[in-house]
């Protein structure tokens, strides 16, 4: 709600374009792609083709796109069960993500992990973790490896507002700060844990921002619905990390348009809240931004159509794809490829 008041903080003009048209179009494309893919996931769920659970981040695309576009190849993403967008934003194909949601053999993990555990190491997506807070220390470890070896990659760890209240958050932030690790913690504050407003269960107004000082870090709370704002902040944090100056904690104010998970009709929202946030839909904001910078409707429409083609093709491929074969049940428990716990 507080974020509602905030206007986009940087309504740039072509004159002060620090981001540049190519990157802007990439940010736009990415957001559209996340939106279309997740919207499709929802449609497929309504058709009973998505199995298990799934957690959409419709409305939160600017965070995923803004960070991913600021990352370099080799940078590492650590996501949660609400990880479709972050996974897609690193370049994983829509087919592989939808395939996993539909538990088909073409899925990213061939149905073994499911929607909460999307992983694509080839794209730097080092896993999606479904135990709240668990991946923050893990991201520290990856950053430690970079520090130890002198590698220049950054580990980026995404999580929600509710996650700031669990012990692992605290341990990871202190650990990263003391060891000056190249890790960036990104809190997507979408105002709710599952169904409970974050303010009801948190001692401070900014669940991440107001905790930063406890780890010697500056308070950073940004408009998470403006991809440019996100992109710029990400760049700053990554530069700091690569320079060996340690971690950042960035709170992005945003909102999920959908329920917490597929089972949730989100009846707990106060009336009008969703509508107000939809006025600040990141895609709406970004279309206006592009217009400001002189990008034509036609260019946008072409991107939209292009994305739709990917999503449509992916949908067809997933529908046609076979179920995973049952022999994968017993593979990859251990590094030898098998599961033998005895001789």
């Amino acid at each position, binding site marked *: 709600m507080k974020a509602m008041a905030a206007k986009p903080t940087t309504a740039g003009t072509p004159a002060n374009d620090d981001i540049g048209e190519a990157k802007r179009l990439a940010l736009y494309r990415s957001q559209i792609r996340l939106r279309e893919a997740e919207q499709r996931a929802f449609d497929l769920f309504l058709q009973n083709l998505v*199995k298990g659970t799934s957690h959409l981040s419709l409305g939160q695309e600017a965070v995923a796109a803004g960070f991913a576009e600021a990352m370099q190849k080799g940078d590492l993403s650590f996501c949660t069960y609400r990880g479709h967008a972050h996974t897609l934003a690193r370049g994983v194909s829509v087919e592989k993500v939808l395939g996993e949601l539909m538990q088909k053999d073409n899925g990213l993990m061939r149905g073994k992990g499911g929607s909460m555990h999307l992983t694509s190491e080839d794209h730097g997506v080092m896993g999606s973790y479904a135990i709240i807070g668990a991946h923050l220390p893990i991201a520290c470890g990856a950053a430690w490896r970079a520090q130890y070896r002198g590698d220049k990659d950054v580990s980026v760890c995404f999580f929600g507002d509710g996650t700031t209240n669990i012990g692992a958050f605290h341990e990871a932030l202190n650990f990263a700060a003391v060891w000056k690790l190249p890790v960036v913690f990104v809190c997507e504050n979408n105002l709710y844990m599952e*169904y409970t407003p974050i303010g009801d*269960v948190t001692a401070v107004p900014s669940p991440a921002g107001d905790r930063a000082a406890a780890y010697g870090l500056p308070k950073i709370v940004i408009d998470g619905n403006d991809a440019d704002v996100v992109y710029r902040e990400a760049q700053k944090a990554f530069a700091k990390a690569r320079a060996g100056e340690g971690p950042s904690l960035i709170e992005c104010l945003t909102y999920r348009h959908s329920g917490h998970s597929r089972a949730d009709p989100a009846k707990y929202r106060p009336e009008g809240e969703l509508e107000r946030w939809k006025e600040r839909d990141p895609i709406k904001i970004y279309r206006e931004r592009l217009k400001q910078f002189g990008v034509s409707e036609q260019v946008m429409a072409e991107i939209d159509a292009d994305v739709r083609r990917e999503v449509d093709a992916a949908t067809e491929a997933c529908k046609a794809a076979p*179920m995973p074969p049952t022999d994968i*049940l017993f593979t990859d428990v251990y590094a030898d490829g098998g*599961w033998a716990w005895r001789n």
Partner: protein
Amino acid sequence: MAEISYRDAVARGIAQEMARDKDVVFLGEDVAKAGGCFKATVGLYEQFGPLRVRDTPISEQAILGAAMGAAMTGLKPIAEIMFSDFIAVCFDYIANEFPKSRYMSNGQTKCPLVVRTGNGAGSRFGAQHSQSVENWCMMIPGLKVVAPSSPRDVIGLLAAAVRDPDPVIFFEHKSLYPIKGEVPDGEIVDTLGTAKILRPGTDCTILALALMVPRALEAAERLKAEHGIDAEVVDVRSLVPLDTQTILGSVGRTHRLFTVEENPRLCGWGAEIVSIVADEAFYDLDGPPVRITTPHIPLPAADHLEDMVLPTADRIVETVRRSLNS
């Protein structure tokens, strides 16, 4: 008598106890205003108000720690851990605090609390939201551990757990929430530490728990109809205290033992019971005691894969038949 769901039985059980005793309080994530992530606690907040039914932060250690502190000083808290897999983030309370304080203090400290949690597979949630972890608790001295298989047992055992003066971990099976069963009117209070013979039989004993109980019962019917094998099915219900009398008694009559558990293979309750029987009733046994378990692997998400790894009625029938005929 009314037919209600296992899910609704949870709320009814809690309500029965909260209405009876104002020291009973309830806390957990999204349990109050939202009625719980499995909708198993709908209505409690409205009925008992915000002082007795409380939403917490995502802080499982704080939830269990707070329950313990309240229990030590006079309340009878019920704490929800949403998915039993999350016991791993607050395991210190389960393993080191609840069960040891009375002993370490030479009897000064009490800890009458209940931890309710959604256990088990079948929802295609994948490896971190589908585990059966009753053995994580059974192996810790000082706890009590219960896992009901029917709406009636949910109410009766939950009431017994709330009234029990010791810490009780109460495993609700997520895949049983929608199933329905007959429940008598009025107060229901059961007894911890009692197994139930659900189907008497003479040829072998099949022990099962929670979701495995209906599967064992189905298997027993098919064993009889298709193979003429008359299996006794025992719902273990309570792992601690363990009703070894009923179990040993049954094996003493049937001379063969099968356990059906959802736990992964190693160190489950099946291993414990098989070991007890092998030691104490060795000469009663006419053949090897056999565990039917989930294989020792993480759980896959995909529906047909998940279905393949949990023990099924088919697998029970096949295992028993083959074992008895060999």
